[in-house]
């Protein structure tokens, strides 16, 4: 006989055990249906009935195709000037994408510094300002899932060009462009902080916005939202993706 005041030794206290949740903790897409009825939660939902997003998001796999020449607008001028100023640019460029009136040059990671220097110094290019450096994690869409995006501005010609490099998550190493654009200093630190891309040659590659002792890289797609339990007045609230209501 169970004594009324003694807590049950059975974990869960008599609540029926659930099958391990599918997609919730692993970040796996919810398009794979749960294996057992118990995994479908209270309403037996297939796919993602979750509109909050905490239960794992469905990710589409889209990779833009390269654009053939001519690119139109000033993009041809930029590309031609780059060809003249940087012999062998064809080897450094993986693909050229023109989309929504914007030019994106996909560059091999090891050549990014040379390309940036040419973009900055060459007469016909003159991209004096590096507006933005940031990262994107194309988990599941690209084998080299971590992309670093450089937004360059030419004040002389009033042009915008985007450079993009891709590295895989096991060896996320990209040469730092701080020698060419000192403004990339903090922005590369931010990209390292959130995506774990290591910028080789950066003078001081440390975390910048997250605490110094933080584990993991929060903006990667396999890092859940929240992700850390919250303690308040002795009670611990699990991170959203671990709560039962989202499983």
């Amino acid at each position, binding site marked *: 006989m169970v004594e009324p005041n003694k807590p049950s030794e059975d974990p869960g206290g008599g609540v029926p055990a659930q099958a391990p949740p599918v997609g919730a903790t692993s970040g796996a897409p919810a398009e794979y249906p749960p294996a057992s009825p118990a995994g479908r939660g209270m309403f037996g939902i297939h796919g993602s009935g979750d509109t909050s997003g905490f239960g794992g998001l469905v990710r*589409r796999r889209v990779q*833009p195709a390269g654009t053939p020449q001519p690119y139109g607008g000033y993009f041809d001028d930029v590309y031609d000037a780059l060809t003249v100023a940087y012999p062998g640019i064809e080897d450094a460029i993986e693909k050229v994408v023109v989309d929504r009136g914007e030019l994106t040059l996909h560059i091999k990671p090891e050549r990014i510094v040379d390309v940036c220097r040419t973009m900055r110094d060459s007469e016909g290019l003159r991209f004096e300002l590096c507006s933005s450096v940031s990262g994107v994690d194309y988990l599941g869409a690209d084998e080299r899932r971590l992309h670093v995006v450089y937004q360059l501005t030419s004040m002389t010609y009033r042009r915008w060009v985007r450079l993009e490099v891709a590295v895989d998550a096991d060896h996320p190493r990209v040469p730092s462009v701080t020698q060419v654009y000192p403004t990339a200093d903090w*922005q590369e630190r931010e990209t390292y902080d959130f995506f774990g891309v290591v910028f080789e040659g950066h003078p001081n590659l440390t975390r910048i*916005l997250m605490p110094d002792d933080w584990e993991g890289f929060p903006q990667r797609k396999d890092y859940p939202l929240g992700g850390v339990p919250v303690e308040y007045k002795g009670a611990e609230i699990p991170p959203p993706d671990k709560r039962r209501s989202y499983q």
Partner: protein
Amino acid sequence: MTTTSGYATERETTEGKVFNVTGGDWDTVVGGTDPIQDERIVVNMGPQHPSTHGVLRLVLELEGETVREARVVVGYLHTGIEKSLEFRNWVQGSTFVTRMDYLSPIFNETAYALAVEKLLGIEDQITERANTIRVLMMELNRISSHLVWLATTGMELGAISMMLYGFREREYILEIFEMVSGLRMNMAYVRPGGVAQDVPDEAIVKIREFLAMMPKKLKEYEALLSGQPIWHQRTKDVAVLDVTGCLALGITGPVLRSAGLPWDLRKTMPYCGYETYEFDVPTTPTGDVWGRYLVRMAEMRESLKIVEQALDRLRPGPIMVADKKIAWPAQLAIGVDGMGNSLEHVAKIMGQSMESLIHHFKLVTEGFRVPPGQVYVGIESPRGELGVHAVSDGGTRPYRVHYREPSFVNLQAIPAMAEGGLIADVIAGGASLDPVMGGCDR
């Protein structure tokens, strides 16, 4: 008698030790004992310090009062907005981004809306009235942001009354914002596709009153500060950064213009129809705090000019794109209990049309889909280039949104401005960058 280099000769008397320093080589004496010569102290300023503009932390290595090394530490206000955005739909994004740089919410929203519209390919469908209202609100916001800059900088450099005046006039603008959007700050007023609701007539009257009042107030500020010797000494030739330094460090906005380069995205790469407005881009050649003060004062006057033109060309018309899928979330009305769904809309979906109810439900819970791709949009915020890099995977939620925050990028200039100067000038230099930590840390 003993002689040690650097020390005066001494002898014992009944009254104690007596030093005889006459005839010594004073350079040697002072050089050997000067405590400042080899003593550097590290001073931690912030993150809770009234003069560091929010939770900014500076670690300064000082030699006497001279700053030898300055390190900037940020991240105390990091809220993970960019990550949170990825878990909400595209429309809900404007509610997040408006909370980044809390002094210029309209700019955050507009940059986001322009990026989403570019992804959707509906830039041409944005109505003229919506664009005019955006310009109107942005320029009012620019004035209010510059007023806070003037107020806080005034306070930090010893002009307390400036703080009171600046916040007093900003309050007036916030009242206009409240009339237009229902909220004083963080309005989420500019939405992808247009703006949330139309400008009421009372607000137009109030803006006209503001236009009549503000030039006088600006003269008052200048009467208070421009001729004042303390203000001159605290700002002139302080925290100088030339164009080369600005470009290398990526500094844009009033700081770049104070160094003499008239780079203003409203002129150089126009958006929202700025090319049709008449205004000047003020610059100064000095590149110091004084120049930044002059530039910002002149920019407020230019903004007033733009607001006036925008009011004159405000014609009746739709404020949202015609596409109901994108326009829905802005179909709001002000009820007795504040702002919410318009009652007519609720009556229709609940009483008349099952189809409407289904569409409403899907659009509210899921949102509209945005074709895959990536775009970058840069606009001129009060602090410089505010860029949005938005990536869509074709779904109803942003795949990635990155803000190129001018506060974040500009703060990199603090070591360049402060090192070699006096510690008091660190405050002036830092304030002249006008950093907003909510934007910097996001």
